[in-house]
């Protein structure tokens, strides 16, 4: 059976994810309302502003249904803001920051500083890619305190964690979708 990919399309760079999937010949549907969720088998949560997307998840009545689907095993991948939304613990968030909180990891928001500290680098990814992939970090988070069954997929040279996986949940602190590389999307689709 064909697997249907959904991309959370409340706010952020969801179009860039659609474009990369199109390069791979894979169609996807935008997820904005609970009925969209019923049609999909896996979900990408894009970059954007995590505080904004968190609020829109609540007003769009998607927060709890997405959490339940993930707990039931639906593969999900969060890039940057999407990763913050998936983390169980968030440092540097706003009061009452809404998040899905499905993955046993801590996300530290704006870990590198402000926009002037945003950067691009090539990141070596365990399992997902044989050669380092181009990665763009925009006011990016890093991950800390991974739970026991969390696998670390990428670290910066200073050891900070920027990609990790716990069973069906994949998080990257950076944006492969901005760099035009398809490798991580292929990895996610095959997982």
């Amino acid at each position, binding site marked *: 059976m064909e697997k249907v990919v959904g991309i959370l399309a409340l706010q952020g760079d969801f179009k860039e994810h659609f474009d990369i999937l199109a390069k791979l010949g894979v169609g996807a549907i935008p997820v904005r309302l609970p009925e969209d969720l019923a049609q999909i088998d896996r979900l990408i949560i894009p970059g954007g502003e995590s505080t904004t997307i968190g609020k829109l998840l609540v007003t769009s009545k998607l927060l709890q249904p997405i959490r339940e689907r993930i707990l039931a095993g639906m593969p999900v991948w969060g890039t940057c803001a999407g990763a913050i939304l998936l983390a169980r613990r968030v440092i540097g968030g706003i009061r009452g920051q809404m998040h899905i909180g499905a993955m046993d990891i801590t996300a530290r928001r704006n870990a590198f500083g402000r926009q*002037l500290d945003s950067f*691009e680098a090539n990141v070596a990814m365990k399992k997902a890619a044989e050669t380092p992939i181009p990665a763009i970090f925009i006011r990016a988070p890093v991950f800390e305190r991974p739970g026991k069954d969390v696998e670390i997929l990428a670290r910066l040279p200073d050891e900070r964690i920027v990609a990790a996986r716990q069973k069906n949940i994949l998080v990257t602190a950076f944006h492969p979708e901005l760099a035009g590389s398809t490798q991580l999307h292929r990895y996610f689709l095959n997982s």
Partner: protein
Amino acid sequence: MARDTRAATATFAVKSGLARMLKGGVIMDVVTAEHAKIAEEAGAVAVMALERVPADIRKEGGVARMSDPNLIRRIMKAVTIPVMAKVRIGHFVEAQILEAIGADYIDESEVLTPADEEFHIDKRRFNVPFVCGCRDLGEALRRVSEGAAMLRTKGEAGTGNVVEAVRQARAVYRQLDALAAMNAKQLRGKAKEYRAPLELVKKVARAGMLPVVNFSAGGIATPADAALMMQLGVEGIFVGSGIFKSENPRKRAKAIVEATTHFDNPDVIAKVSEGLGEPMKGIELSTLTQEERLAHRGI
């Protein structure tokens, strides 16, 4: 290369990348740290820190300049979302100041009194990214060639009247469509007419889209206004006076955020449009003289 954590900062991808993260969102003008917090709580993707919203700049007159850096710092401290701030067109020292205090984006804005009648800022010399206003494709491409990493149509700021925003968005997208259909000779003519580099004109014609994100600004006062602009093709919304000059800023801000996300869903827009109280009063544009219009500044 793979070993270098910070291989490159302030590249075009990094500068235009933040704008990509703001897409589908609402950027709100705020004049105090308290306003900034209200905006963040309402779901703003970023705030524009300034001393006076455009409606007050209009009313009070005089020279409008960059805000006190201390106000911008206080707002940066108050919120976790990106903070933008405005400089006068061509005033590169005001831009140097904003870069020094670490603002996340600079708006080289016609809402302030222009400092240079001939040149805009050479934005490529800065590490902080810039957003610039445009009324048509020519202005858009000139600003991109100067290094703008984000665009916004200008609208007519501080009027609460969406008509100029509509006119300009239609102009930009109509001209983009026309450009995509042109042959090499016609493109050379357009580059001349637009006073933009031919290479850029060709690239945009091939892609059929702008190389940077384009938001709408100037005159958006209601959730329906925001959704209208999104349906016309812009990628996000700036709201200046429309929120804090209305009766219930918290509720209106939240409603505009939701309408921007669900811009093609009338049921949602109808729901969030209910009971918002009075919008800002607004100005019929025919009552403004040419001098009172801001959009013609810095073309």
